[in-house]
């Protein structure tokens, strides 16, 4: 025994740090810090650049709907209408896209034959690969014209709901059109997230429902949807984050005006992102600084929604 003791300690080497580990840990940590630095850098930039116009602003930045910062004396501007428009467009997109995405995801996972499911999944993913400027072109050149008669019908039959009150915009370049195109753009991410969680529903839970005599739809309501709900919500919020920041499609489709208008079939409203894109070329005086201040607001909204999404998605891990 005594002889093996010494050789045993010799055989187990001291915990030494291997070069590969050190390099890898170092570069991983470096990348992490870099991301944080970039994020902080952008936030600081937005903050510093927006201060001059905010100091000089003679209107109320948060409650005013005016936008008149392109001067060196007494600029007046506010983001109230822009915040409203941004959130409205994203909400329309969310309300339209989420049920469709859930439907597609359920179809892919539980109804479609295997081949069709694969093809469909691929097509939905392709939607995500289309650049937003192309969506914008499609929207303004083709879709708004096609939607015009449909909007007329909406007004005729549902005009008593304030949202759909007339007169219908003659161009069709309305908030509803912009929201619709945004809905198509965020469809893939919500579908993909929903499909993933629906696929993860344990076989045992699905069999439990079926063995109780559930039909396929009852099984989905009983075992699949409750299990998948946090994932679907997370996907919807990630989609909303995308819709909030979407610029080109909205800028091309919407015929903007800085008002707070709940009438989806009339022209009007504007989103922060599209406003920045359209105003920037004309900006002078405090103009650029004011646009940067608006950008800061968008950054804050998007950050809040994304953090909300992460929170919801991470909570579902405890559940499983």
């Amino acid at each position, binding site marked *: 025994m005594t002889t093996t003791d010494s050789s045993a300690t010799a055989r187990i080497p001291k915990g030494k740090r291997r070069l590969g580990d050190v390099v890898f840990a170092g570069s991983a940590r470096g990348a992490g810090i870099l991301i944080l630095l970039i994020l902080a850098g952008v936030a600081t930039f937005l903050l510093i650049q927006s201060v001059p116009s905010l100091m000089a602003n003679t209107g109320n930045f948060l409650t005013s709907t005016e936008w008149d910062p392109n001067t060196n004396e007494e600029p007046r501007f506010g983001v109230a209408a822009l915040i409203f428009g941004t959130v409205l467009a994203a909400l329309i997109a969310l309300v339209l896209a989420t049920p469709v995405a859930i439907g597609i995801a359920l179809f892919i996972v539980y109804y479609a034959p295997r081949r069709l499911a694969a093809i469909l999944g691929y097509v939905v993913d392709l939607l995500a690969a289309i650049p937003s400027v192309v969506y914008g072109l499609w929207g303004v050149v083709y879709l708004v014209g096609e939607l015009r008669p449909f909007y007329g019908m909406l007004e005729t039959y549902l005009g008593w709901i304030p949202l759909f009150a007339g007169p219908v915009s003659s161009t069709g370049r309305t908030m509803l059109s912009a929201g619709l195109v945004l809905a198509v753009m965020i469809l893939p991410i919500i579908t993909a997230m929903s499909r993933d969680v629906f696929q993860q529903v344990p076989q045992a839970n699905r069999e439990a429902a079926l063995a109780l005599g559930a039909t396929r739809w009852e099984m989905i309501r*009983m075992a699949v949807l409750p299990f998948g709900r946090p994932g679907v919500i997370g996907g919807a919020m990630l989609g909303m984050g995308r819709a909030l920041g979407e610029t080109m499609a909205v800028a091309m489709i919407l015929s903007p005006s800085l008002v707070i208008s709940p009438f989806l079939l009339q022209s009007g409203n504007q989103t922060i992102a599209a406003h920045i894109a359209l105003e920037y070329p004309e900006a002078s005086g405090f103009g650029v600084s004011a646009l940067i201040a608006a950008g800061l607001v968008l950054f804050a909204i998007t950050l809040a929604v994304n953090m909300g999404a992460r929170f919801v998605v991470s909570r579902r891990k405890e559940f499983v």
Partner: protein
Amino acid sequence: MAKRIDVSDLNVYYGKFHAVENVNMTIEPRSVTAFIGSSGCGKTTFLRTLNRMHEVTPGASVTGKVMLDDIDIYDPSVDPVAVRREIGMVFQRANPFPTMSIYDNVLAGAKLNNQRISKRRADEIVERSLRDANLWDEVKNRLNKPGAGLSGGQQQRLCIARATAVEPAVLLMDEPCSALDPISTLAIEDLISKLKENYTIVIVTHNMQQAARVSDRTAFFNVEDTGKPGKLIEIGDTNKIFTKPDKKETENYITGRFG
């Protein structure tokens, strides 16, 4: 209420793999039939064909006939959903719905059959089913907590309560006690004895004493070799199977001699 099951010439396949060969048996109403046999001989596979749960497994297929009283359950005009409402099942592994409370778990099946249950009636069903499954005292103060928060054995009893809450004509139980302590096992055996007054019960078990205690008839399954199909060796009165079975294989298995 209780119904007779008549199985003739039943074969089960997973894709090309022939899992169970040529089973003929009658399962009597108002009695307990035990399935015994070594691991992998096809007890679960066969059990799942009795309420068409095999159809849920991709690639599984069946030939032969299963009659529930005078209805051929494989007839194309018969809805598998209707079959499963008549023939309930408790799985080998406990599978409560993780997102539902204990209360809702028990009621899950009952609500399928009857969407509008009064609160009073629902409370009654929950209490009766949980008492029968010997779980009531342990959970009565936390009925609104998630079912997944229970211990493994408690979860299995919750699943038994969920299956009996719908009062099926036939109850298939796949090793319902394999995760239970002796006291709960006895409670489930009591429950089985009580249920057999009204129901037809099939129980798969690896526990010989349990088969001997609770069952009226016993079916012994065996498989010659892995890769070969499992077969029903013999079925008969439990007494007879455990004392003087017809087949040598059965005797070897019962007495613990293999080979």
